[in-house]
């Protein structure tokens, strides 16, 4: 864990068991054109609204939700690519939200949070070779160069199952699976504590997906990393993650152990999500069908449940009282007035 040149070596025990503690984080974007007469009030897109979650050391946390739910924004907040509008992001003992995103590049903790991006082809500079891409963070964050750098690059590549002769190639000369490995090698080079994976296998064939997922599990164990794993593929999340967070329109609607949440969802949205996933046995275990589209994230009603209107079990109460994230047995939480009533 130590031995990272350039980091303040805070021993993990001193930081406690929680690697990440996010409390009431929100990210709101102003939208549209400010009219001449609209004064100070502008419409705000509530991309992430009042999100709180924790990540223990060594844990893998899944993050699911459909497009527009805010998971990409949350990922950018966690990785400090952007600043929250409000709320706290504690990493170990430090309050990260106190450091502006544009200054975080030079922070010693930068090396401890890394991302594997969704589209490896897009996230590798087309003018860099694989070796350049993997070397970049090592050069920048750890000040390595020359022979040491080359050795570290090869080490990262080998850990990720990338044949060394491919290091001289450009991204467009590599297959999808090879590019994914380059993206992972680049991220693990600085030996981060927290690895955020944003749909790393989305564009890959099923067979390649298996090898990448198995690689991620191996790395997790051997390098002692904690994962935040974002995916729209519930099956993969179920296999890979300890706990899962379900988001809808910027808010968390359900949290819990991955298998429990998918086998017996508490929140009606999670139910709808699980019901929509095609199964190999072709059986529709749950007749629930979520139709319609999510409401607009612009200036949402703060007193109404975001899912109200599309929810199969909405009542008037849901339109006037925002449900809080309540705790249930087994480490589960759900933000629904009627969560207990959901079938097991």
């Amino acid at each position, binding site marked *: 864990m130590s031995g990272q040149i350039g980091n303040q070596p805070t021993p993990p025990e001193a930081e406690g068991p929680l690697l990440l503690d996010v409390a009431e984080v929100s990210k709101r974007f102003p939208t549209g054109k400010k009219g001449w007469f609209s004064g100070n009030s502008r419409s705000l897109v509530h991309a992430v609204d009042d999100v709180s979650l924790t990540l223990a050391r060594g844990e893998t946390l899944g993050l699911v939700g459909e497009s527009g739910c805010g998971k990409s924004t949350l990922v950018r907040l966690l990785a400090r690519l952007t600043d929250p509008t409000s709320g706290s992001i504690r990493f170990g003992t430090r309050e990260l939200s106190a450091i502006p995103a544009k200054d975080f590049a030079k922070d010693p903790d930068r090396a401890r949070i890394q991302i594997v991006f969704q589209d490896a082809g897009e996230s590798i500079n087309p003018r860099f070779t694989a070796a350049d891409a993997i070397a970049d963070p090592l050069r920048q964050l750890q000040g390595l160069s020359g022979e040491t750098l080359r050795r570290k690059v090869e080490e990262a590549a080998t850990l990720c199952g990338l044949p060394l002769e491919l290091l001289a190639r450009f991204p467009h000369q590599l297959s999808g699976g090879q590019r994914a490995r380059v993206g992972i090698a680049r991220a693990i080079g600085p030996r981060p504590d927290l690895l955020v994976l944003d749909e790393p296998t989305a564009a890959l064939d099923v067979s390649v997906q298996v090898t990448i997922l198995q690689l991620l*599990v191996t790395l997790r164990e051997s390098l002692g990393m904690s994962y935040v794993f974002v995916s729209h593929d519930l099956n993969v999340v179920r296999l890979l993650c300890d706990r899962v967070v379900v988001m809808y329109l910027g808010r968390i609607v359900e949290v819990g152990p991955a298998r429990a949440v998918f086998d017996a969802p508490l929140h009606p949205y999670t139910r709808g999500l699980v019901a929509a996933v095609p199964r190999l046995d072709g059986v529709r275990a749950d007749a629930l069908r979520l139709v319609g589209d999510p409401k607009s994230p612009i200036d949402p009603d703060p007193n109404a449940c975001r899912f109200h209107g599309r929810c199969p079990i909405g009542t008037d109460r849901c339109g006037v009282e925002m449900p809080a994230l309540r705790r249930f047995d087994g480490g589960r939480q759900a933000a629904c007035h009627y969560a207990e009533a959901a079938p097991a």
Partner: protein
Amino acid sequence: MSVATMLAPAVAANAPPPVLEVTDFSVEFRTRSGVVRALDRVAFSVGRGETVALVGESGSGKSVTAYALLGLLDAAGRITGGSAVLEGMELTTASPAALSAIRGKRAAMIFQNPRAALNPIRSVGKQIGDVLRRHAGLGARAAAAGAVEMLRAVGIPDPQRRASAYPFELSGGMCQRVMIAIAVATRPALLIADEPTTGLDVTTQAVVMDIMQKLAAETGMATILITHDLALAAERSGRIAVMHAGHIVEDAPTRTLLLNPRHPYTRRLLAATSTAAGNLSDLRSIPGSLPDLRRDDLPPCRFAARCDRRLPACDQPMVWHDLEPHHRIACWNPA
């Protein structure tokens, strides 16, 4: 050496003939680096009201099959053999004009990226109307009314108002529904859906597939569903044809294929599908990689090099083996 038997006539003598019958279908692409033998003697059929899924990984040739059938190959591609008969019309020898006449009318296609497939500067109502005017011969007013009806049929709320919307104003799921509306407006006999829900949220996917199935049931339309997602194929098709490197390797009713896959590649594919697994360690990747389709010396079985059930017999020219009625595989050593 031609492929041997077609399926023995498994349908009763007085059953209607299939909407599409593909036999011995081969396609090549001439590229700078050689001739790519993209499809090799592909054969399958789709009956009225039936949904057949063409399942395979990238590079398997499933999309090429669709494009080639409808005459949409790019200039470098050629059909080099076989036949494809759509309601009595031979597609492989048809003139571009003849193909253009049936495209959109008797056979329609929907694509993966709905927003990219729609004209961004024309309202969705007009785009549906265009198809009705061209292929159904309707006048402007009738076409506009028909467009609204189609929008209603695909479940778009407030269709009258939405007809004047532009694609950028609609979500991905809505755009896909519009594309379905365009495709189905003329009640075609055959719908080819090329990865129609890849890129859509799973909830939207369910709704879009429901609409497709409903429309197919109402009109008796035959559907070819092209997908890499075995679970989607399991849920939405009556028959699955598994493709690998330009070959169809197994063709069986859905339940049969999933409960009792006989071709080694099918079994491997299932073992790699995360829907089936209880644990990550249960998943198995498929060893090796696709053969280079530009080689002159491609073996008769393109999976043999990666197969653990390979026998010397596998070097013979490939023929279909009928395991049961309706279940056939291209393998000398089925599991």
